[in-house]
């Protein structure tokens, strides 16, 4: 279990930094993006694997953890919170469900004459689409929640003198 979690943290931090690099963050932000990605993904894995929570609820908690943790980290790194938490959320995008949605859509279109198969693929399409969009939505809401709870604090992270 311990090794699995460590590996999970390691690969999540690489994924977070890599996807963050696309958006050209300041170099000092990478360390905090890596930590946030690892924390978020690790929490979600624990909640899903050991607490048997569903993927949307686990993602919401992981998003909230990333959002709250991004506040002190952005204060330390003088970066805006969004610079840290957006890349950290990306390793939790439910890619497999998104792929299954597209796969089901194409299979549905190719089997419209077969009532049984087309109903099955439509079922798959809707369930996968609902999971994908719900997870992405709760991730975004969870991570932005702390910024709306503490707006004055969140908006002054890049201020060096008060």
């Amino acid at each position, binding site marked *: 279990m311990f090794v699995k979690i460590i*590996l*999970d943290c390691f*690969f*999540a931090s*690489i*994924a*977070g*930094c*890599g*996807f*963050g*690099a*696309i*958006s*050209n*963050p*300041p*170099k000092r*932000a990478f360390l905090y993006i890596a930590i946030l990605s690892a924390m978020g*993904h690790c929490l979600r894995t624990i909640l899903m694997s050991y607490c048997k929570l569903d993927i949307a609820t686990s993602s919401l908690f992981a998003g909230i953890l990333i959002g709250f943790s991004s506040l002190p980290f952005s204060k330390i790194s*003088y*970066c*805006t919170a*969004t*610079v840290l938490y*957006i*890349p950290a*959320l*990306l*390793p939790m*995008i439910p*890619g*497999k469900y*998104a*792929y*299954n*949605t*597209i*796969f089901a*859509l*194409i299979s549905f279109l*190719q089997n419209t004459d077969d009532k049984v198969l087309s109903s099955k693929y439509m079922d798959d399409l809707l369930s996968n689409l609902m999971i994908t969009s719900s997870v*992405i*939505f709760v991730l*975004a*809401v969870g*991570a*932005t929640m702390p*910024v*709306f709870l503490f707006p004055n604090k969140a*908006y*002054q992270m*890049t*201020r*060096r*003198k*008060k």
Partner: protein
Amino acid sequence: MHDREWLLRVSRLLCDYSSHLMGCGVHTSRVVRNTKRLGLAFDVYVTLSTFQNTMSISAMDMITNKVHSEIFEVEKSPILFSHNTELSALSWDAIDNKLTVEEIEEKYNKILSKHLLDPKLILLMVSLANLSFCKLFGGDAISMLIVFLATAFGFFLKQVMTKWMCNNYMTIFASSFIASIICSVSFLFDCSSDICMATSVLYLIPGVPLVNGVIDIIEGYTLMGLTRLINCSLIILFIAVGLGLTLILIK
């Protein structure tokens, strides 16, 4: 000296500042807040109106009550988090240290001329990120290697097409198709092919506009938020079309 020329110069700086912030992927309320703050550093009260491609500004000199209004275009720029951070800090710096227009212009130009990450380094990091993604989904070593190569080719194509100023959606479609068609090689091996295919296009997911869209809507900039989310939906649609074309071809 608060004359008409001075107000025009300050307004131009505020237009450039807000246009660049909006272009480089900052959510709307931050653009408005930062520009207002920068204006207050000169005793200029700023009102901004924002749309997807254009913005309008009304800058009122609070000493002389003179007003300058202007409509300007939003700068076309890739997402630049480093500019988001540095320009936000500049607005605080201006108000806390009472900087002059000349000092702010100098600092602004210095921030814009700073070197960004090397595109080759970004290519490597994105490929490693997608490889890690594959592992997180339970992919095996062969799948991880294929995903790494597919991402490298797909992202390189995206970089080249962006440099050639190709349409963004066409770029996404081509990149998605190339990455997924390379990943379809995994069906020739005894490996986790489904995971390989699922991971192949995830580097294209528009995370920044997606979160910015949600923030904009929650903060009351509904039009801007919806515009960003429609843009995201189109990007996701074109990723799906690229992946879908591969699935049809390899059926």
